[in-house]
């Protein structure tokens, strides 16, 4: 039967007879070699796909490692070789800053990037496929292992791809490169296996165990040295300042998570892109369940905020008013604002009244309150809270207890920093869930 995976098979029909690749029709002449043309091509494709995967993984790891200096950097977000890194918000940044980009995030700043494990895997696959390519004898015993080895990044690609689509709603270009490389390597490994000769009948367990061990050496070596050389800073645990005024006599705090955990306060602008990412990190990392989190609004919109001469986030004052008008439904307003940030900012830039009208249509409860003197007064009180505490003119900001999380720790190092700060707080009962 002919199938898309049918290949010209030059092997002898007697499968019991040991077969050495590249020796078909030449065995009598005593020739030796590394395998059939088809298998060699397949192994070359595995090696090249792994090399591509390594380049993507290294680029992604490089972007992650660059952020270990706690500063803002551009992120590579193009499949084109040599393309410039991007500074602004992108799917690549969203994915990198998400809790899914690394593991053990509470144990070390930023955790161990998944991309680093990917680097180890692809480096290993290059080594393994080149080894097979250069070997005089490559049988199905070896290529079966290659299928399993290339299957690992493919399975991980499926898992992380679905997380990116379903949980983050963002795609990372480098990750897509890794997914595609993994898939090509897997397919090529299968082809290599199909075109490889049968094994000599000896046990494969010993060989596979050794090769598996070598793979582990790759992973553990990279992880070990990564952990050893990862930069540390005492500031993460100490925080950057404290709240001077903690009380809320004006009723401007909005509850983000209910419960009796350690109190936390997030300073947010509902139309700030970084706040949207921050909110997602807070939720997906479970911090909102460990901290009794409240928020105080700090709209960077000159309509109500005298501290900004030009609106960074037009429309943020209107959204803030809506949140304070209906504090019970404030989180719904916030989610809606996060989901429509760009459109709201663009509309408000030329027609703030249109944004107010849209808010009133979407959330009828705020009608009559939005734009009134008392609610403007409340937004003003929120801004004055920032003045009273001499907060930096930026969002988001996070306080655990009364200690301020340093700005550089609110993205990749968030879980680690919060863990350290919570450990320094008096014991408290676990908090309830958000919403």
């Amino acid at each position: 039967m002919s199938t898309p995976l049918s290949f010209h098979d030059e092997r002898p029909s007697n499968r019991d007879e040991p077969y050495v690749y590249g020796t078909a029709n030449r065995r009598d002449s005593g020739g030796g070699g590394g395998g059939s043309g088809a298998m060699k091509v397949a192994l070359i494709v595995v090696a090249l796909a792994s090399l591509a995967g390594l380049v993507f993984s290294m680029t992604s790891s490089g972007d992650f490692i660059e952020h270990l200096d706690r500063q803002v950097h551009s992120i590579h977000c193009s499949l084109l070789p040599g393309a410039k890194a991007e500074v602004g918000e992108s799917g690549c940044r969203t994915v990198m800053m998400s809790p899914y980009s690394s593991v053990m995030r509470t144990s070390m700043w930023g955790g161990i990037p998944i991309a680093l494990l990917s680097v180890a895997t692809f480096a290993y696959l290059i080594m393994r496929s080149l080894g097979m390519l250069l070997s005089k004898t490559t049988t199905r015993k070896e290529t079966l292992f290659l299928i399993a080895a290339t299957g690992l990044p493919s399975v991980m690609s499926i898992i992380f791809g679905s997380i990116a689509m379903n949980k983050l709603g963002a795609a990372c270009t480098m990750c897509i490169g890794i997914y595609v490389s993994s898939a090509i390597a897997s397919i090529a490994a299968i082809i290599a296996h199909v075109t490889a000769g049968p094994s000599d009948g000896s046990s494969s367990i010993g060989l596979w165990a050794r090769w598996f061990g070598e793979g582990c050496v790759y992973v553990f070596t990279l992880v070990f040295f990564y952990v050893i050389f990862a930069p540390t800073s005492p500031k993460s645990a100490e925080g950057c300042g404290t709240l001077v005024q903690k009380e809320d006599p004006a009723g401007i705090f909005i509850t983000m998570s209910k419960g009796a955990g350690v109190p936390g306060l997030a300073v947010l602008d509902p139309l700030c892109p970084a706040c949207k990412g921050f909110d997602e990190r807070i939720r997906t990392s479970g911090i909102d369940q460990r901290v009794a989190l409240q928020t105080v609004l700090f709209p960077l919109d000159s309509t109500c905020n005298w501290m900004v001469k030009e609106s960074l986030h037009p429309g943020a004052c209107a959204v803030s008013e809506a949140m304070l008008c209906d504090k019970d439904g404030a989180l719904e307003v916030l989610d809606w604002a996060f989901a429509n940030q760009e459109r709201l900012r663009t509309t408000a830039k030329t027609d703030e009244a249109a944004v107010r009208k849209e808010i009133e249509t979407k959330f009828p409860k705020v009608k009559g309150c939005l734009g009134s003197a008392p609610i403007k007064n409340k937004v003003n009180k929120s801004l004055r809270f920032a003045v009273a505490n001499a907060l930096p003119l930026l969002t988001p900001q996070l306080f655990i207890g009364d200690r301020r999380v340093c700005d550089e720790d609110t993205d990749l190092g968030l879980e680690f920093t919060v863990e350290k700060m919570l450990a320094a707080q008096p014991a408290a009962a676990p908090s309830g869930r958000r919403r």
Partner: protein
Amino acid sequence: MSSEPIRNLVLFAACLLVPLGMVVSSERAAASRLAEAGDAASEVPIASAAEEGYCSVQLKQILRRVAGACGLLGEGGRGCKPADAKNVASMSGDDFNALFSPLASRAHIVQFDAEQTALDPKATAEVEQVWAEKGGASFFFVVSRASKDGGADYNTELSQQRAQAVMGHLQSKFPEDDDLKRVGLLWLGADYAQLGENFCEWKRSRTGEPCTAKDINRSSFMAWIDCAI
């Protein structure tokens, strides 16, 4: 000895050491930048009260004196004490009024009927509106006057009651608002710094109605002052 084990070893080491070297060198570079950044001061501005260009030394001096007379500075209790306006300002009436001319967009004037101290509905709306326009101001200034009709003492008394009427309305409308502690009252009677008719063009509670020099001085001038005092 076969060359294959050596070749495999070289391949194993090369494929491992190349990415390892890149990872470690990237981390060391990040550590170096982190150490350098640790000593650098943050350039992010800090949230602060407004301080506009019109906040001259003379204006701040007047505001401080009024704030002091009203018990807003120090530990004194709340409640303005009558003060000689000329001592508060130490300048001519025209110079005094000129200090407030940059406040045209911030100030509101509530007008009263002759010999009256009660706020009419338009006046209460005006008071509430100006109160909502706090911005980053540190001080809410109420300067009340009377027209030249009547005696000096009577007019002083009248302007004081007009200032108190504004304060009273704020206290009843916003009883919980701790910004009431930022309100400073000054009553000038009719002897000092009378408003000219040009102030009829400013935002006032009786916009559209006839406005003479007498009308505009039967008033309380209110403004949030964007000066840190």
